[in-house]
Structures are given as structure tokens and as C-alpha cells.
């Protein structure tokens, strides 16, 4: 089946995603990573390397390793941007006949689209491998400020890579799509804040009636995560020098370890307030090995990078001005790029735009996700996806001890059908009441009752023996059909619950909130009920065993067991979990003694004879839950 992939062709990293059953899915590459470095290398042997492996050999092959080629896409050699990049790029940038900036590797000249095509090819291959089929259609993203030449260059790159580029879309637009802002059904002004590995972009979009319009963009082409890491590295090496007098910046391996540790610390400090940086045997001098052991707090790091964060304010304000907007006009703020995970950056964004930024979609993947959604829209997949509903709350029945046993979990896609086998709670129980409920709490009384019915005419049998299959069937219209069937006699009863008897949105939300709030309390109570049911079951089993084997048990043991059962009964109504558990334990000990005696005297019994309370068939134990007992009518 034809698929369309969305590719975020980034300056430092690229990412590919697609829609899978209507849901965006980021595709990991062969190395297991969701993003691939946008680095291409040509080895002396004539091999082409793309991604992580190209990056790994960069130091020994700097002239033949191309990175950040996006900075050259569709640009003239003489342009300011290219001239600035030439100063720092270790590979050769030359002027092509048409005045464009090209890359010279050995004797060959490559246009930037050719290099980008190699990256796109790698992304295409990632998708091909994942689906086991060749994917040819793609949506590729570009920065909002790209002009026609740059867009055309990107499209060319796609064609060289063997991709049919269905559309080139703006990165901020893709991000807005990933957050579903186009579906809000009203006109919105959106700020997209993108702080990535090497560049910072801010864009103001206006969207309404399915049309996105970029009102203004701004940014800083040399500001990103790398600068932040460098600040931490500098701080660490300065502190280390103060302590030991050694400059680790001169030690290749030590510097490498510092870089790794700095990046790790930066990431950790997004979720913790303090991190330990431990680098034992970092280096050594005449006096012996030296360790680096430092604490970095979030606030210390924030002070180290404070001025870098402040640098985003200027472009944001200019962008607002260019878009002829004010802070209060911004309806939504979206975060893109790994650096936006940093709490201080988020705080800055909040101050600048006076709005809580949208989070939730991985900022490294949000652009690719949006491109994949656009691909789905173009293919008609998105609007044609079957609108399958889900159950907002769990559905189930009441079982022994007032416990609510769920059969269908919340958020299950309907139509759905599920059944489970239950049994009786007492000997010779002739009827069971099926009490259908909806909700998230562990106890029936706290959930909403949808209806109840009785299944009568169950033939007399010890408890746990009858098998009653309860089935829930929700059709595509949300109609719930509940039936109970005695598998022994084939007798069946059912009830249909219409959606009108269900809940409205506010009720659903209230119930979900309550379930969350009472979870611990409910769990504890459920443990007590489970323990009690267990003890009750054990008493029943033992009494039955004693009765069935009256002549095989010695009087002494009989007395011991009777006493133990009587003692256990005293605790049956207890609300204390430990007490119930202890009683169960003591009773088990007494019963073990009896069992020993039984096996000694009579040898193996008939299979299953000593195990009432469980159906003889090959049903799994966990499927057997005693149904609530209630005398019918």
C-alpha cells in the first residue's frame, strides 16, 4: 500500500515519521535512534557514509565530511550566510557556474541538493526497512524563511533521492499540525519557538479555515544546544584547573569525557534540580591520578547559560513587531527542538509571550510528525480514517465483596466484544445477579450503575463449580449489550444499555478525576476484600475436605482443624489486612497438617476431587471470579 512519509530535513539532525492507522509514528533508524545526524562523508575508498557513522570518522576525514549543508541550500556563493559559514566549515565550499555555493570533495563538486539527497535517501531507507516495502512519496519540511530557490533545491534533493516530494511545507506549520491546531476550528495566532542543536528560529503563524500563513520569522543562525554544552565544559574545566592546576582542554580524551558529561548533566538538569558529575581518573600529573567530582545545580547551570537564553528575546520581539502582533494576540505557543526541554528556556518563552507553551509532542520529532500528518491529509487518509469511537470509562460487573470487576477498559476502541467466566459464591446458589457498571473506581458502589439482571435456574452445585460466562458487546454505535450464560445448562439472559443512559462529558471527567484521587484508598480496600475472599474460600475448602474425608482424619487432627476454622471465622469480618492474612496463614498451617495425614493414609486422590471452588475444566484460575451473590427476587 502506498504510504507517504514526512521528513524533517534538519540542519544538525533529521527525522522521519509516517501515519500508522491514523496515528503518527516516528521511525527509528537501523541504529535504533529516532533522529539521524545530517552528516555526509565520502571516504577515500569512495564509500559514502551518512549519519552517525559519518560523524564518527569526521576528525580523521574533515575535508571530506559535510555537515550543516542546509546552510548552503539554494544560496549564492557570495551571500553573507555562505561567506560566514566558509569561515568555520572544514570542507571546501566553491562557487558553481551559476553562482551557487557548491561543495568540493577531492576532484568532484557537489551541489547542496546532492548532499541533502544522500540524507533523504538514508531517511527513505529507514522507512523502507521499517515497512519492508519501498516508500516513494514524501512531504519534506523547510524553514519558513526559505525562498523559492531554496525550496526548489530541497525538492530537487528529494527527486535525486528517488522520492516523489508531494509537498514542501514550513517547519513551524508542521509543528502546528502535529499539535492539531488546524482542527481547533477557529482562527489562531501561533508562535513557534524552535531552539535546536545549532540554530534558533521563531515564527508567527496565522491559521484559519485550514490555511496557514507565516506572518513573520526571525532567529539566530548560530545559537543552539552546542553553545549550552560549551558553557558547562568551560565551567567544569575552569573549576578543575582551580583545584588541580591542570588544563584538561589540552587532553583529547579527557576533553571528550568532559563533553559527554556536560551534555548528560544538561539533560539531567531538565528533570532534576541537582546532578553529580563524576569523572574518576580524568587525568594525572606527577603526583598521581586526578578525579573530577562536582555537583552542578540547576540554578548554577542557569547562571552559566543565562546570557544565551536572553539572546532569544530580541528575535522574538522583532518577530512580533514584524507580524504586527502583540503579546496578547498570541493564542498558542509551540516548542520545537531539544533545547526547549530546559525549564529555564520554557520560562523565558512564557515571559516573552505571556502564555503557557504547548508541550506533549517530543520537540525533536514534532516537525517530522507534522510532515507525516500533512502526508496523510494529501493522501486523504486523515479525513477518511474511520472515525472509531472509544469507551470513555471502563465497563464491568459487581463481584463478591462489592468489587467492581472491569471487562472493558477505558479508551478501548469500539466495536469490541469481551467475555469472562465467573462462578457462584455459595453452595447451591440458584441465581446470580449481573450488575452492570461504568467507572474507574475499584468498588461498585462508587461507580455508575447502568442496569442489572438475574440469571436464574442454575442447577444446585457447590460454589465455584457453575460456569457463568458474562459477555460485553459494544457495537459501533456505542450500544452496550451484556449477556450472561450458564455454560452448564446453556441458559442465557441479557440486557441492552443505550447510550442515553450513559454519562455526559462533565460526568466522565468527574469520574476519572475521582478515580485518580481515590486510587490508593480503593486499592487498600480491595486488598482487604481479596484477602477476605481468600480466607472465606479456604474455610470452605477445608470444611468440605474434612466432611469428605471424615474417616481418614484422626480425631486429634480433626479437632485441630475445627478449632483453626472456628478461629479463622472470627477474623472473617475484619477490616485489617494483616489480621486477615495472619488468619489465612494459621489456617493454612492447620490444613497442611491434615493434608499430610490424608496423603499418608490414602495416597493420591482422584484428580480435582480435593479442589472445590475451581471449575474442573481447563479454564485459567484468574478468569474465575465469584459473581456477586444475590437471591433473585
Amino acid at each position: 500500500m502506498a504510504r507517504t512519509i514526512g521528513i524533517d530535513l534538519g540542519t544538525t539532525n533529521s527525522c522521519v515519521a509516517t501515519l500508522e492507522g491514523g496515528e503518527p509514528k516516528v521511525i527509528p533508524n537501523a541504529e535504533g535512534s529516532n533522529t539521524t545526524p545530517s552528516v555526509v562523508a565520502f571516504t577515500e575508498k569512495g564509500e559514502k557514509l551518512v549519519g552517525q557513522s559519518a560523524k564518527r570518522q569526521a576528525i580523521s576525514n574533515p575535508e571530506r565530511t559535510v555537515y550543516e549543508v542546509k546552510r548552503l541550500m539554494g544560496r549564492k556563493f557570495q551571500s553573507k550566510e555562505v561567506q560566514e559559514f566558509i569561515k568555520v566549515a572544514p570542507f571546501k565550499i566553491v562557487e558553481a557556474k551559476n553562482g551557487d555555493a557548491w561543495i568540493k570533495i577531492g576532484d568532484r563538486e557537489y551541489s547542496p541538493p546532492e548532499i541533502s539527497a544522500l540524507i533523504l535517501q538514508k531517511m527513505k531507507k529507514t522507512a523502507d526497512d521499517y515497512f519492508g516495502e519501498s516508500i516513494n512519496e514524501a512531504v519534506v519540511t523547510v524553514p519558513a524563511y526559505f525562498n523559492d530557490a531554496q525550496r526548489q533545491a530541497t525538492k530537487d534533493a528529494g527527486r535525486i533521492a528517488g522520492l516523489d516530494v508531494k509537498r514542501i511545507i514550513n517547519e513551524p506549520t508542521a509543528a502546528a499540525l502535529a499539535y492539531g491546531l488546524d482542527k481547533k476550528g477557529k482562527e489562531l495566532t501561533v508562535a513557534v519557538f524552535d531552539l535546536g542543536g545549532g540554530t534558533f528560529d521563531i515564527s508567527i503563524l496565522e491559521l484559519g479555515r485550514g490555511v496557514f500563513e507565516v506572518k513573520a520569522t526571525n532567529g539566530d543562525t548560530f545559537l543552539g544546544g552546542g553553545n549550552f554544552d560549551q558553557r558547562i565544559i568551560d565551567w567544569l574545566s575552569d573549576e578543575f584547573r582551580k583545584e588541580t592546576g591542570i588544563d584538561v582542554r589540552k587532553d583529547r580524551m579527557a576533553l571528550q569525557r568532559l563533553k559527554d558529561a556536560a551534555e548528560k548533566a544538561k539533560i539531567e538538569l531538565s528533570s532534576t534540580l541537582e546532578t553529580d558529575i563524576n569523572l574518576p581518573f580524568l587525568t594525572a600529573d606527577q603526583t598521581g591520578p586526578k578525579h573530577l567530582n562536582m555537583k552542578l545545580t540547576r540554578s548554577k547551570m542557569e547562571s552559566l547559560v543565562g546570557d544565551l537564553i536572553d539572546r532569544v528575546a530580541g528575535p522574538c520581539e522583532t518577530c512580533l513587531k514584524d507580524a504586527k502582533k502583540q503579546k496578547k494576540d498570541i493564542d498558542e505557543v509551540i516548542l520545537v527542538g531539544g533545547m526547549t526541554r530546559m525549564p529555564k528556556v520554557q520560562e523565558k518563552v512564557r515571559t516573552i509571550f505571556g502564555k503557557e507553551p504547548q508541550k506533549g509532542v517530543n520537540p525533536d520529532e514534532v516537525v517530522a510528525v507534522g510532515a507525516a500528518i500533512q502526508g496523510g491529509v494529501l493522501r486523504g487518509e486523515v479525513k477518511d480514517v474511520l472515525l472509531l469511537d472509544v469507551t470513555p470509562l471502563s465497563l464491568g460487573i459487581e463481584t463478591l465483596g462489592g468489587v467492581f470487576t472491569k471487562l472493558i477498559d477505558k479508551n478501548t476502541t469500539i466495536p469490541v466484544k469481551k467475555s469472562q467466566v465467573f462462578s457462584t459464591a455459595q453452595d447451591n446458589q440458584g441465581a446470580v445477579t449481573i450488575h452492570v457498571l461504568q467507572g474507574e473506581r475499584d468498588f461498585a458502589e462508587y461507580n455508575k450503575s447502568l442496569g442489572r439482571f438475574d440469571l436464574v435456574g442454575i442447577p444446585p452445585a457447590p460454589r465455584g463449580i457453575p460456569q457463568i460466562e458474562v459477555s460485553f458487546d459494544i457495537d459501533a454505535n456505542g450500544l452496550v449489550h451484556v449477556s450472561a450464560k450458564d455454560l452448564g445448562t446453556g441458559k442465557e439472559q441479557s440486557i441492552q444499555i443505550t447510550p442515553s443512559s450513559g454519562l455526559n462529558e462533565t460526568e466522565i471527567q468527574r469520574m476519572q478525576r475521582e478515580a485518580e484521587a481515590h486510587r490508593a484508598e480503593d486499592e487498600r480496600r480491595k486488598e482487604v476484600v481479596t484477602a477476605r475472599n481468600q480466607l472465606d474460600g479456604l474455610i470452605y475448602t477445608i470444611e468440605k475436605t474434612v466432611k469428605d474425608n471424615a474417616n481418614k482424619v484422626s480425631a486429634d487432627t480433626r479437632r485441630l482443624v475445627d478449632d483453626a476454622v472456628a478461629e479463622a471465622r472470627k477474623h472473617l469480618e475484619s477490616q485489617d489486612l494483616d489480621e486477615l492474612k495472619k488468619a489465612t496463614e494459621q489456617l493454612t498451617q492447620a490444613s497442611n497438617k491434615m493434608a499430610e495425614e490424608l496423603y499418608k493414609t490414602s495416597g493420591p486422590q482422584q484428580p480435582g476431587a480435593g479442589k472445590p471452588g475451581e471449575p474442573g475444566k481447563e479454564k485459567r484460575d484468574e478468569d474465575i471470579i465469584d459473581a456477586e451473590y444475590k437471591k433473585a427476587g
Partner: protein
Amino acid sequence: MQPAKQQSEPIQSTDLETQVKTLEDQLSETKNEYLYLYSDFENFKKRVIRERTELIRFGWEPLAQDFLLIIDNMERALAHMPPDTDKTLVDGLQMILNQFKAVLDKQGIRHIDALEKQFNPEFHEVIGHEPSEKTKGTILKEESRGYTLHGRLLRPARVIVSSGLKTEDHEIQKQEESYGKNNRH
């Protein structure tokens, strides 16, 4: 009467034919959509199974990487032992390290051979190069060990490679610095 009848009948049948045609089209379209959705779902199931297997095999990668840092440091500690250190103590530490490695080995972690081998960017990462008599690209030094997990790269070996007999050291050094400065990946 008769002409009217003749006229109305063909119209009706055309109407019905159109209706049948529309419905048939709709049916085949729906059937098609269903088939696609179903095959999509079947494939989805297979991928989910594959992904779950992968998750069990590779899901602990971050933890494994942290473990490797501890191994690195234990190896560093052993390498830094002064010659007069109690031998039994050194041996004991070596045993602990071996034990740790054996545990990781059981979980599918293997170290990557690097020394004296030809550089391979799939498994090795260059952190520097030096002129040497060895052929260009031969790994001269292993600054930190590389490892694979179930055959997939977990961490590349960080190596120093030979740049061949004679190179313009200065120029390369310069480029290296400039790359390092602007390497923001």
C-alpha cells in the same frame, strides 16, 4: 398512454442501473478501504510483535550505557594502581571487574576489537590521528572501549588512527580544532 409508458420504463431502469452502479462502486470502495485497513492492521500487529521483542532486547540500552561508564572507571582505576599496591587487592578488584563483565556478556554485551584493526566508522569513532609507520587508518590506540548489544552498536570504540607516514600535521591540526569548535551535533 403507450408512448408514455415506453418513455417512463427506460428512465426507470436507467435510474436503477445508475443506482446499482453507484452502490456497487460504493461497495467496492468500502471493501477496498476495509481490505487496506485490515492488511494495515495485520502488518501493524507483526510490527508490534517485532517492536516488543526489540524493546526487550534493546530497551535497557541507556542503563547498559551507564554500566559501561562504571566499567571504564574500574579499568582506569586498575590501570592507575601504583606498582607497590598489594597484589591480592589488585587481583580482587580485577575479579570484580571480570564478574561485572561476565554479567553483561550474558545479557548480550560484547566488546569491539579495535587495536591494530583497520578503522571502521560503523564501530569506531576517531578522536585523533597520528603519523605512524602503520598503514593509514590503522587503529593505534584505543582511548575507550566500544561495545555492541546483541550485535548492534551500543557505544563506538574511541580511537586514535594512523594518518600514514608523512602528513602536513599543522594543517590537519588546525582543521581538527576548527571542526571541534563548530561541531554542534
